C-alpha cells in the first residue's frame, strides 16, 4: 500500500480546493501539515476528533451575501460582467458566448471543460466566451485535486482570464489588503491549473493570462466593479511550494513504520480511534507552529497546545523569535538572559544581548 494511503487510512483522500492549495504556501516549513495535506487527511475532522477544532465559523449572513452577489454578476449569461471587462481591457466586443459547463453533469465537467478550452484555444481570436462552472484539475503530491474557479474563465482577444467574484467591497478604489491578497493567491491557483491544462493540450500556457480579474461590489452598493489583479508573484510562490510538496518522499522517509492518522471510522463514519493515540501519532511528525496558523490551518489549536507544552518561542510569533536570535525554547532564552544558562556554541552573541537587555530592564523597573 502507498505510504500516504496508509497515513490516511481507508477513506478517500480529501480533495484540496483552491483555498487550501493557496494556504499551503502559508507555512512551508511545517512537515506535519505537508504530510497531512499530501496524504489528503481531513484535518478539520481530525482536529474535531481530538477535541480542538479550529475556530473557523462562517456566518450565514456572509454566505448569503456572497451567493447573492455572485448570482447578480452572472445574471443573464454574464451580460453585466461583459460590460465590466470591456471597460477594463478597453475591448470592443459586442457579442459574447456563454457556456454553462455545469449543464453536462458533474462527472463530465472536467472533460467537458478540457474540450471547450481546447476548442477555444484552437479557434483563437474572435470568440469571446464565458465558461461558467468549469472544472480544472491540478496534481498535488501525486493526487489530482479538482478546482472550481470562482466559476468564470473567460476568453477575450485570444487570452484566458480567471475571474474571481468576491463579495468584499471596493470603496473609493480601495479594499481590505488581506482580502485582496487572499483573492490573488486563490486566483493564482486557478491560473496555474489552467496553464497546466493548456500545456497538456499542447497549447501555449501563456494563453492563460497572469492578469486575473477581481469582481467586487463597489462602495456600499451591490453594483459590481472589476479590477485587474497581477498574480505573477503569487504564481511563483505557488510553483515553488508545489515543487516542494513533491519532496514529500523525503518527509515520508522519516516517518516511523506503521504510523497512521486513521480515525478508524465505524459503519456510520464516527471515528473510533482513541484521541490520545491519534494525538501521539501526530506528535511523531514535527510541526512548525506559528501564530499565523490560527487563521489558516485546521490543526492550529492542537499544534499551539503542543508548542505551549514544550515552551517554544514560536508561540510568541516570528517577530519575537527573530529578536531572540532564533533561540527556540523560552526557558533557554530566559536562562541566557538571567545568566543562569551557559550559551551553547554560536549563541554567545545573542546571550550577551539578552543579558544586557535583562540588566537594562531590571534597572528601569527598579
Amino acid at each position, binding site marked *: 500500500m502507498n505510504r500516504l494511503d496508509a497515513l490516511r487510512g481507508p477513506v478517500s483522500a480529501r480533495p484540496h480546493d483552491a483555498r487550501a492549495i493557496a494556504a499551503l504556501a502559508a507555512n512551508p516549513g511545517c512537515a506535519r501539515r505537508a504530510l497531512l495535506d499530501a496524504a489528503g487527511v481531513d484535518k478539520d475532522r481530525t482536529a474535531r476528533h481530538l477535541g480542538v477544532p479550529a475556530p473557523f465559523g462562517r456566518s450565514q449572513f456572509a454566505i448569503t451575501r456572497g451567493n447573492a452577489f455572485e448570482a447578480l454578476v452572472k445574471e443573464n449569461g454574464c451580460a453585466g460582467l461583459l460590460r465590466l471587462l470591456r471597460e477594463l481591457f478597453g475591448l470592443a466586443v459586442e457579442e459574447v458566448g456563454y457556456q454553462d459547463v455545469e449543464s453536462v453533469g458533474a462527472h463530465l465537467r472536467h472533460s467537458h471543460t478540457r474540450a471547450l478550452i481546447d476548442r477555444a484555444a484552437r479557434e483563437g481570436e474572435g470568440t469571446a466566451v464565458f465558461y461558467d462552472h468549469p472544472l480544472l484539475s491540478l496534481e498535488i503530491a501525486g493526487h489530482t485535486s479538482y478546482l472550481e474557479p470562482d466559476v468564470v474563465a473567460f476568453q477575450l482577444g485570444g487570452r484566458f482570464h480567471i475571474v474571481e467574484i468576491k463579495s468584499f467591497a471596493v*470603496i473609493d478604489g480601495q479594499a481590505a489588503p488581506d482580502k485582496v491578497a487572499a483573492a490573488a493567491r486563490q486566483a493564482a491557483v486557478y491560473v496555474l491549473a489552467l496553464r497546466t491544462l493548456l500545456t497538456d493540450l499542447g497549447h501555449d500556457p501563456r494563453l492563460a493570462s497572469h492578469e486575473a480579474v477581481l469582481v467586487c461590489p463597489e*462602495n456600499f*452598493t451591490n453594483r459590481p466593479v472589476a479590477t485587474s489583479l497581477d498574480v505573477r508573484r503569487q504564481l511563483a510562490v505557488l510553483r515553488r511550494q508545489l515543487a516542494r510538496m513533491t519532496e514529500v518522499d523525503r518527509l515520508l522517509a522519516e516517518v516511523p513504520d506503521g504510523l497512521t492518522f486513521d480515525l478508524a471510522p465505524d459503519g456510520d463514519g464516527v471515528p473510533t480511534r482513541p484521541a490520545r493515540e491519534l494525538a501521539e501519532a501526530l506528535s511523531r511528525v514535527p510541526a512548525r507552529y506559528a501564530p499565523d496558523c490560527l487563521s489558516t490551518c485546521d490543526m492550529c489549536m492542537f499544534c499551539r497546545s503542543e508548542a505551549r507544552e514544550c515552551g517554544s518561542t514560536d508561540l*510568541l510569533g516570528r517577530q519575537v523569535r527573530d529578536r531572540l536570535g532564533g533561540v527556540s525554547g*523560552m526557558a533557554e532564552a530566559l536562562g541566557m538572559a538571567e545568566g543562569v544558562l551557559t550559551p551553547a556554541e554560536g549563541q554567545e552573541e545573542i546571550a550577551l544581548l539578552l543579558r544586557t*537587555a535583562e540588566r537594562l530592564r531590571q534597572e528601569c523597573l527598579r
Partner: protein
Amino acid sequence: MSVLAALARLRAAREGVAQPIATVRHCHLASRPMVLVPLKLAGEAAAPLGAVVGTDPDHPRLLVVPQPRDRDLRFSFAAELAEVLLPYVEGFAGATETVERRGGEPYERCLDAPQILVPNRPAVTFLGLLGRSTRFRRADGPCPVHPSVPLLGRWLTYFADRSHRPGSSLLLAATEALSTHWATGQSALEDANLAALVGWIDPPEGMSGARAAEEAEDPLLWPPAGPATDPGFDNEVLAPAVRAYEEAPSGHAVERVAQALRTQLEPTWRLMWRAAGLLRALPEGGRVGERWEADRGSFTRFVERLAENGPPQARRDGAVGAAARLAGLERAQAGYEVQRAYDDPLIMAEYRLTGEAFAGTVTAADPGHAEGEGRSRKLRPLVTVKTADPVQPAPGTVLGSPDRRGHAAEVVEVAGDEITLKIVKGMGRGRTPAPGSVPEPGERVTYTSLTGDFPSSPALPDPELTPWTHGGPPEEYVPGDEEAREEWA
C-alpha cells in the same frame, strides 16, 4: 518589537501575567472619555448591527438595527448615534484659549477635546467606513436623511483619519493602547482579542493571565469585541431574531434583537472601562500633554471648518493634499518615537541596547571650561560619564538628554567605558553656566543621539499649482447629488 519587549513576553509567559514595557502612560486619557463599541453585519462593508455608547460606565446606551439590510433603519441608527456622539463632541467646542505663536498670528484652541475609545483597529476602520457612507448624505433633495447624519459622517471620518496619526489620542483603540504598555505571554496576533489581552494584564483573582486568556477565546464566555460578530451567534441567535422581526416588525421583535445584541456587547462594554482604568492607573508621560495640545489644535481647526460650512472630506486626497498628509504622518511618527524615549527610561533602554543612547554616572565635570578668546569666547563645560552600556558613540556626535530640556552635548572622546562630553546648549547666557544646567559628579545621566530635530518637510505647492506631473491642479471637490443618493445596499 524590540529585544526588551521580546524579553518581556518571555517573562510574561513564564510568570503567567503580562509584564510592563513602559513605565509611564504614552497616551492621553480624558477624564470623561466616550466609549463606543460598534457591531457590523457579517459579509457587509459597513452595515451597522448595533452599538453600545456612552460616557457613564453604568449607563450604556444600546443602539439596535433590527433588520441590518434595511437602508432606512441604518440611517436611523446613524441619527441615533449622532444624538449621543454629537452633543459630546460639540460640548468641547465652546471654551477656547488664545495661543500666541512666534512669527505668526495668535490663534484659538479649545481647552479640551473629545476622546472616543473603541475596542480595536477594525472598529476604527468600521467607523471610518460608516463616516464615508454617511458624510455625503443630504437633509434635502431626493433621498433626505436626518440633518445630523451627514454631520456625524464628517466627524467619524475626521476621528478615523486622525487616529492614523502616531501619538494622537482623539480616537484610541483599546487593544493598541494596552499593547503599547504591556507585553503578554502570547503573540501580537492573539493580543488583538481584547478579552484575552485584558485577561493577561489583569486576570481575575486566583487565575493566571494565561488561563484567563484561554477562557477569553471561548466566544460563548467572551463574545468577540466586534465589529465582527461570532458566526455561531449569527447563525443560532441573531438570524432567527432578525427573521422574526422581518415577519412581524413589532416592538417585541425589536426587543428580541436588542436582547441578543446586548449579550454580545455588554461584556465588551465592561472590558472597555476596565481597559480605561488600567491605563488611567499609569502616571502620564511628560510629553503626552504636548501631543494632546496638538490634538486639541486639530480638533479646533475641524470645528472651524464645519462652522465655515466647508464641503465634506473628499473621497480621495489630491496630489498635494496626499503628500502633505504623508509628510505629516512621517513627522508625527518620528516625533512620537523620540518623545516616548525621552519620557520613559524603559523605552530609552531599547535605544541604549542598540547603541543610540547610553546612561551612566558623571565622574568629573569642568563647568567653567570655555573655548575661544575675547568676544568669541564660548562656554563649553566638560563632563565625563562612566557607563556600562554596550555601544558607544563616535566623537563629534551631538547628543540630547531626557534629563534636561534644551540641553545638548557633543562627544569629545571615548576612552574605555568613560565618555567625555562637551556641553553646547542649554547653559543660559551668562559667563558661567546657569545653576543645574551642567551635571555634577555622582549624578546619573542619560544621553542619546535621538533628537527631535527632523529636517522639515519640503515645501509643497498650493493645490492650484499642482504640476502636470501630478495630474495638474485638481478640480475643486464638490460632492454632487450622485454621492448624496449613493446606494447603501
